[in-house]
């Protein structure tokens, strides 16, 4: 059996990297009989970059959605505060600025307000969720996602 030379001190130098990669390929192929499709790495690289670019789109959408929800919530809070504490300062509904009424329409049409359930709704809903589904959620999300993220952050 052949041993790879020591090379890892200069990980970011491209010539060393090329030679390291070809040694890796050679040792896996010669000693373990492992092969791969021709031109695999360049195809795989473009697949990964495409997935990453889709992922960025998803992250952007979530971020935008959160911003809309927070803007709408802030608008509602201001209107509510004005209604309770300074009713005279609030324009009649006919005189509500277009941007406020448009935002409320947008919120209703897209059910955005339902994306942020109230605490009581969560409590009531939880009564109807079977225990095994809660366990499954804890296994899949809390353990795998949260703990995993924590481990990786170290």
């Amino acid at each position: 059996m052949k041993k790879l030379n020591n090379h890892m001190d200069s990980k970011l130098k491209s010539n060393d990297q090329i030679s390291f990669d070809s040694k890796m390929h050679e040792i896996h192929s010669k000693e373990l009989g492992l092969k791969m499709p021709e031109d695999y790495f360049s195809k795989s690289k473009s697949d990964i970059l495409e997935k990453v670019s889709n992922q960025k789109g998803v992250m952007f959408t979530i971020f935008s959605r959160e911003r809309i929800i927070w803007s709408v919530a802030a608008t509602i809070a201001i209107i509510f505060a004005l209604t309770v504490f300074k009713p005279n300062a609030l324009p009649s509904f006919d005189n509500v600025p277009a941007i406020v009424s448009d935002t409320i329409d947008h919120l209703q049409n897209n059910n955005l307000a339902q994306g942020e359930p109230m605490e009581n709704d969560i409590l009531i809903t939880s009564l109807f969720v079977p225990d095994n589904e809660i366990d499954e959620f804890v296994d899949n999300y809390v353990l795998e996602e949260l703990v995993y993220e924590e481990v990786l952050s170290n």
Partner: protein
Amino acid sequence: MTNEDEFIKNLLNNKEKDKAFKKLLDLYQERLYWHIRKLVVTHENADDVLQNTFLRIYKSLPNFQQKSSLHTWMYRIAYNESLRFLEENKKKNHLSLDDVGHKYLNNLVGDVFFEGDEVQLKLQRILSKLPEKERQIFQMKYYDDLKFREISAVLEIKEGTLKSSYYNTVKHIEKNMLAVELLAKNKV
């Protein structure tokens, strides 16, 4: 500031991130592929896990706190993604721990991208019979050429334990391979 510090800074900078991530792929794609391939055995599985690994790396970059080197951190992600994949497969196929080694060899032989001859198959058979952790330690040291310090960070096992496991495994493999060569000579 070292090359790696500068590189990490670019990865965390929104303007430079995409360019730096491409560079990261060029640097680590092949070595992480081989690391994953030995864990999940077939090329098809390794391809899936490699893609998930780089997606996870991309998503987790903002959380990278540089407590370990970028190199070790990425191996940890690749290792964890491989384990997650194997665990899901085990659940799907209702496999016991004893079945795993047996399945390792079956999967390997059934893979169209395995072209091992008799000696390579024998080495793979010896590896498949090793306890999972010992096999991983041997593969990370011998084939991935990781330092014991790096393996210790990935597997969370003390360096002393890793060293003794590695040397015992090497002796075990040498002894068994020698026996195979003697058998082959006697056949001739």
